[in-house]
């Protein structure tokens, strides 16, 4: 077992568990979305003939939770740059790949945990998990999605130095990815050009996977979803490693 990877993972989790405000803050937003949109749009959704909105929305908000919290995991790298801890890890005799993946696996674990809380809230609101046998694989898929976007956030964070610009740029990137993903409404209803954008968006395929794994309904071929996820992780793993190997301070 790679011990550097393990400590970096452990550290991310310890810091998350110690920061109760952060725990509450990152969960409040998705739960707010779930409750307001869920109750607010349910009747409209039903009238339009698209079925039960809570059933549609819950996996989408789980995806949103994972997307936002994973990308923001990059913030911890900026934090470490500012407060110096990054230097301590950069001079250590451990591979940069294990530093990168330790951080990202830690971030992914946290995001998955948050996603599970959102699922629980969804169930309280009437979401039905269609097949409990698929629950474990669904959690693995959540984790892989979280890893993908942790790698994205951390890779980008390696190019940023200050705490103000990173969240702003991230929102600029993540918000459109979220709205164009089919998390809130089916993308088949989107007009032409927006549908093209949605199909070019990796988040779309991750959300589709979650919709299938928890709710039993998917829009695309599952294999395509999984392929996008796997290729994404491989590509960002390589890009992230490349950037981490060149990380200076």
């Amino acid at each position: 077992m790679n011990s550097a990877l393990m400590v970096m993972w452990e550290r991310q989790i310890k810091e998350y568990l110690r920061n109760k405000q952060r725990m509450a803050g990152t969960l409040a937003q998705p739960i707010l979305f779930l409750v307001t949109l869920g109750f607010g749009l349910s009747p409209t959704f039903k009238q339009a003939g698209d079925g039960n909105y809570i059933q549609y929305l819950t996996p989408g908000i789980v995806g949103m939770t994972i997307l936002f919290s994973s990308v923001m995991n990059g913030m911890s790298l900026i934090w470490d740059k500012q407060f110096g801890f990054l230097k301590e890890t950069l001079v250590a005799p451990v591979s940069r790949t294990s530093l990168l993946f330790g951080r990202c696996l830690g971030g992914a674990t946290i995001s998955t945990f948050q996603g599970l809380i959102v699922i629980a809230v969804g169930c309280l609101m009437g979401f039905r998990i269609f097949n409990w046998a698929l629950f474990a694989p669904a959690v693995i898929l959540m984790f892989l999605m979280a890893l993908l976007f942790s790698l994205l956030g951390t890779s980008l964070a390696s190019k940023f130095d200050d705490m103000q610009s990173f969240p702003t740029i991230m929102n600029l990137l993540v918000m459109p990815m979220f709205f164009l993903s089919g998390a809130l409404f089916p993308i088949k209803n989107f007009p032409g050009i927006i549908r093209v954008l949605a199909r070019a968006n990796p988040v779309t395929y991750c959300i589709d996977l979650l919709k299938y794994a928890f709710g039993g309904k998917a829009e695309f071929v599952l294999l395509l979803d999984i392929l996008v996820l796997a290729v994404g992780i491989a590509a960002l793993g390589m890009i992230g490693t490349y950037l981490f190997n060149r990380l200076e301070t």
Partner: protein
Amino acid sequence: MPDFPGRINQMNMIEVNNLTKNFGDFCAVDRVSFSVPEGMIFAFLGPNGAGKSTTIKMLTTILSPSAGSMKVGGFDALTEKDEVRSSIGVIFQDHTLDDDLTAYENLYYHAVLYKIPGAERKIRIEKLLDNVGLLDRKRDLVKNFSGGMKRRVEIARGLLHHPKILFLDEPTLGLDIQTRNFFWAHINKINKEEGVTIFFTTHNLDEAEKAATRIAIIDRGKILIEESSEEIKRKSEADSLEKAFLKLTGYDIREQPADRVAIMRKRFKR
């Protein structure tokens, strides 16, 4: 040269040739060359912004030079970074602890990263925390510590593993007398007993004179002199190292050169 048993061949632990670092048109380190033999305690002195920390960053593989070459622990610091990192330990000038971890955890993670065997970790950590007077605070988060206490944790962490070469960038800055006393005793001990090569910077010239076998004075990115403190005093016809230092580097107070370096670095990064 300090004497320690079992080491006769004097290989160079640090070898630097024409090392240069430019940030845009500002030259922080200008064609610097020097070497440090194994087992030596070597002091690097200079006013603020002279290029000391930039040199240490390059030697410890976290900043790439604009030109020149360097060997650390017998390895090329440009192409054999992993080998160099396995040979060195660093105590940085600025704060590098994780504030959201406890004192013990900071040292523990360091012990894991530096591959200290599991059985030894706890013993060594507790001994060093005891040495710096923080054993009873080991379960406290570092963010609740005062500046001086943080520095002591940093010192304890830096001494946890015994590398071939130890880089110390103003290690005693902000340390109380007791910790400073412990620190130099420990440094001298690992230098004598294990032959650890020490490369340090300081603004405390007494400290440099007492500890170092050889001293280099650097200013505006260039090495002005590299000798024993006796030779430096003799050559600059001064009766103390401080006077020699002022003669060599001038009496002007530098106009925030450290900030200038930071600004240039930011602007020209990547």
